[in-house]
């Protein structure tokens, strides 16, 4: 059974199918880099930018299909989910589908794989394109068999007609058949008929990853490959005074030493030789450095003092209502993406053309940036996505690609592989920016929130390439490009102010975003952007208001929210957790709750936690976590659970442990001893994720939905266990212990 679904959304054949896709409400520049313009063709998802069906789906004479996406697998299970969508709508077994991901020479340009947009951009496009391709094939079969299309059935890539007539896709397909623009209307499969969608299909990328297959760009070994390593300056803005290239060139196995301005690299036949060459070169190099960093001991104050562009992003009622007042200044330090595998790329230059294998999140933007950096025409640069270690945003991937490109240019004809060293990844990461949120709210005599004022200070969360100056190598080479100008991502998706506008019904509220164009440390996109701190702050204050007015935190939230989907995730998490009947096991037990709708536009997520924090140690031990998530139509339930579990644990790590450290000159958190993240001693005893089933609904971005609510729930649980409200992240044992001691003195 299929259903015609129009752009405007609602159509219910037999009442089963509700909404096919939704218009993104966001027309400002978004983190994926593709927003900012009104719809061109009125087509769903990325079809609007790339309407041709064969840009997404190709069917060959054997009847097998190749799916093309401009998005990339980042360990989030994207490939499997997209294939599920395509298989479902094409009515082909999964095994007969293959997938090509982001490649500037082959796939549609879908901007960055970021901001949990992939399913709604690419998934939606592929779903509609696949449904339309299926219809085209069916119509062709009807024409050939001389029967009405409605009399035909499709199963397993074959069209069945009356009298045992059947034609396979391979027989039906002709050149150019899919070289047509998509229609505004698709006949999508009803959820009731799903065979592969909404199923926990095992991810196709995992077998190679657990058996040592070639799963990553790190594992590629093209014929004749050289190993490159770069020497990074010791600090931002350092300039090279002196280095001994000759000494390194004389080392056995070193093929070449490259110097271009402040850019230094070595090339060798073997990886270990390249590393030895890099270290030797580093030891002979002297730099001129400046003390340009703020005092890390008081980063929040330093940030609030920077010049800012202020925007009121939300203003209702007349803030200033009296009541029980709660206020606090919340802050988070710079955080590093911390990919377990340092960034890596392979580049090859020949005949004026450059090819780069990279785990960037945006092959097209990277292509433009590299072409700009090398002053080459963009059409002579090709970027092909190959998987890397998880990146969680804009990490060193693009920089490694630029390094590889620089070195490949010095060695035409030979593929050059560059992997960053651990300390380079850590020191030069485009960090998740440090931020401050100041919140002030009151609860009135009726127990309802009367007044709300939220201010957020943050630098840009969007310094991805596009402009060459976003790449480290481009800033270092002799004909340097200046750092890219800071971009303030605007509402409704927002950047530093993502999720700053409370979703709760509050009569008088005002939200101000202080955008800081000057950046003390290099920063860019990291999972959930400002959403993490904004949600943590909002939910902390909400909790505090509930406590001060003697109300249960969950009831208090429900009292202030009408959105039925928000209510449902809150109620589901609370009831699965046993919130109402919760009993403290000991004096150090704490319970906490957190909720947010990611970007106020995407998936809804509520998290309840139980922790233990002995006041005498301040060490937080997480016992139990229950999350409820509504992400619209589910494609792969196990994939979503995996993402949410991961998001929760990563958020725990940010919340409890993480902080980039620096002195006045250099970043000092250059490895895992200086920048601890969660290890197995701190993992929760159990994590449960409940998905709300929304058959027929659109896809809502889910990958980053847990970050804010999980951090908030932990913050609230710490308060519940110890009586202290923590404001300055990370909430380390030492800080909690100190806060408890200060409180017990007061």
């Amino acid at each position, binding site marked *: 059974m299929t259903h015609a679904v129009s752009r405007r959304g609602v159509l219910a054949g037999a009442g089963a199918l509700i909404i096919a896709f939704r218009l993104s409400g966001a027309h400002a520049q978004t983190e994926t880099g593709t927003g900012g313009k009104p719809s061109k063709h009125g087509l769903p998802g990325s079809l609007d930018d790339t309407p041709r069906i064969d840009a997404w789906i190709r069917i060959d004479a054997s009847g097998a299909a190749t799916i093309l996406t401009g998005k990339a697998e980042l*360990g*989030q*299970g994207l490939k499997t989910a997209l294939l599920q969508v395509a298989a479902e709508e094409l009515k082909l077994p999964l095994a007969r589908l293959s997938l090509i991901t982001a490649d500037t020479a082959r796939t549609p340009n879908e901007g960055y794989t970021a901001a949990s947009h992939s399913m709604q951009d690419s998934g939606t496009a592929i779903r509609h394109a696949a449904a339309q391709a299926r219809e085209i094939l069916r119509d062709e079969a009807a024409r050939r068999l001389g029967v009405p299309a409605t009399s035909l059935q499709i199963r397993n890539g074959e069209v069945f007609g009356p009298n045992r007539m059947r034609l396979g896709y391979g027989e039906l397909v002709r050149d150019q058949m899919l070289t047509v623009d998509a229609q505004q209307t698709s006949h999508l499969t009803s959820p009731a008929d799903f065979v592969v969608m909404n199923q*926990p299909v*095992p*991810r196709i*990328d*995992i*077998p*190679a*990853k*657990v*058996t*040592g*297959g*070639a*799963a*990553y760009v*790190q*594992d590629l*070994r093209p014929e004749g490959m050289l*190993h490159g390593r770069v020497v990074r300056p010791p600090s931002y803005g350092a300039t090279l005074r002196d280095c001994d290239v000759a000494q390194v060139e004389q080392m056995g196995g070193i093929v070449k030493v490259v110097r271009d301005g402040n850019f230094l690299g070595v090339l060798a036949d*073997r*990886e*270990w030789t390249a*590393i030895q060459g890099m270290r030797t070169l580093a030891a002979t190099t002297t730099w001129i450095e400046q003390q340009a960093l703020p005092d890390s001991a008081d980063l929040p104050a330093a940030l609030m003092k920077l010049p800012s562009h202020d925007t009121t992003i939300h203003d209702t009622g007349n803030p200033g209502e009296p009541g029980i007042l709660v206020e606090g200044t919340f802050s988070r330090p710079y955080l590093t*993406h*911390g*990919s*377990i*595998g340092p960034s890596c790329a392979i580049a090859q230059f020949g005949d004026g053309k450059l090819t780069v294998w990279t785990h960037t999140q945006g092959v097209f933007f990277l292509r433009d940036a590299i072409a700009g950096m090398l002053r080459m025409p963009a059409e002579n640069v090709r970027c092909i996505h190959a*998987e*890397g*270690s*998880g990146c*969680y945003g804009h990490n060193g991937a693009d920089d490694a690609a630029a390094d590889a490109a620089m070195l490949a240019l010095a060695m035409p004809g030979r593929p050059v592989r560059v*992997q960053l060293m*651990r300390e380079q990844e850590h020191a030069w990461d485009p960090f998740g920016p440090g931020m401050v949120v100041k919140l002030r709210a009151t609860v009135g005599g009726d127990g309802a929130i009367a007044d709300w004022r939220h201010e957020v200070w943050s630098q840009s969360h969007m310094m991805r390439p596009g402009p060459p100056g976003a790449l480290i190598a481009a800033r270092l080479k002799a004909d340097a490009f200046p750092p890219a100008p800071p971009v303030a991502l605007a509402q409704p998706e927002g950047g530093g102010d993502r999720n700053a506008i409370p979703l709760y019904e509050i009569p008088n509220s005002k939200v101000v975003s202080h955008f800081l164009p000057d950046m003390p440390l290099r920063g860019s996109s990291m999972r959930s952007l400002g959403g993490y701190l904004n949600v943590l702050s909002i939910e902390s204050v909400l909790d505090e208001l509930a406590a001060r007015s003697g109300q249960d935190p969950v009831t208090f939230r429900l009292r202030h929210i009408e959105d039925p989907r928000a209510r449902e995730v809150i109620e589901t998490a609370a009831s699965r957790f046993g919130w109402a009947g919760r009993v403290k096991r000991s004096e150090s037990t704490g319970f906490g709750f957190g909720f947010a709708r990611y970007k106020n536009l995407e998936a809804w997520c509520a998290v309840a936690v139980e922790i233990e924090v002995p006041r005498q140690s301040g060490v937080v031990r997480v016992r139990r976590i229950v999350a409820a998530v509504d992400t619209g139509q589910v494609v792969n339930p*196990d994939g979503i659970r*995996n993402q949410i*579990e*991961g*998001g*929760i*644990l*990563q958020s*725990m*790590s940010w919340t409890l442990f993480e902080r980039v450290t620096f002195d006045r000159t250099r970043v000092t958190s250059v*490895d*895992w*001893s200086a920048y601890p*993240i*969660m*290890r*197995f*001693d701190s*993992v*929760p005893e*159990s*994590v449960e994720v409940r998905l709300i089933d929304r058959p027929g609904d659109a896809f809502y971005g889910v990958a980053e939905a847990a970050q804010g609510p999980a951090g908030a729930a932990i913050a609230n649980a710490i308060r519940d266990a110890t009586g202290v409200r923590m404001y300055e992240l990370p909430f380390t044992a030492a800080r909690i212990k100190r806060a408890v001691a200060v409180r017990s003195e007061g």
Partner: protein
Amino acid sequence: MTTLTINGESRSIKASPDTPLLYVLRDELALNAAKYGCGLGQCGACTVIVDGKAIFSCITPVMLLEGRTITTLEGLGSPDAPGPMQRAFLAEQAAQCGYCIPGMIMRAQALLNRDPHATDESIKGELQPHLCRCGTHMRILRAIRRAAEEMKLKTADARTRR
């Protein structure tokens, strides 16, 4: 020239004696599983088994390994015939980006070989040197538990059949 026994095969290695095993595996023998993560013994991504013990290959020069038995993830099974630990990771879908997983599997394998009855606590304690940034920890623990159960069943089975 060093001779190493890797996954049951004897291999002659040209690399200089100070070369860490990691680079020999990846560069010279084209084995993908052991991963560079930190080169400092801080993350576990490069873990392999030498004479039954899980070690960091990134800081172990090949000159120390002559005549010793080295097992990498490739030695536990292949995509077509995964070993029990690999099957357990597949069954639990215990990976996100997966970069940390080979190291995790190797240490878990070494632990279960030594102590098939390892408790949840000792599994966690054993994995303390390993980092996962994706937050796959819960699944990794489940997978190891599952592998332990399966291995126990197999031994019990073998015993009853005897």
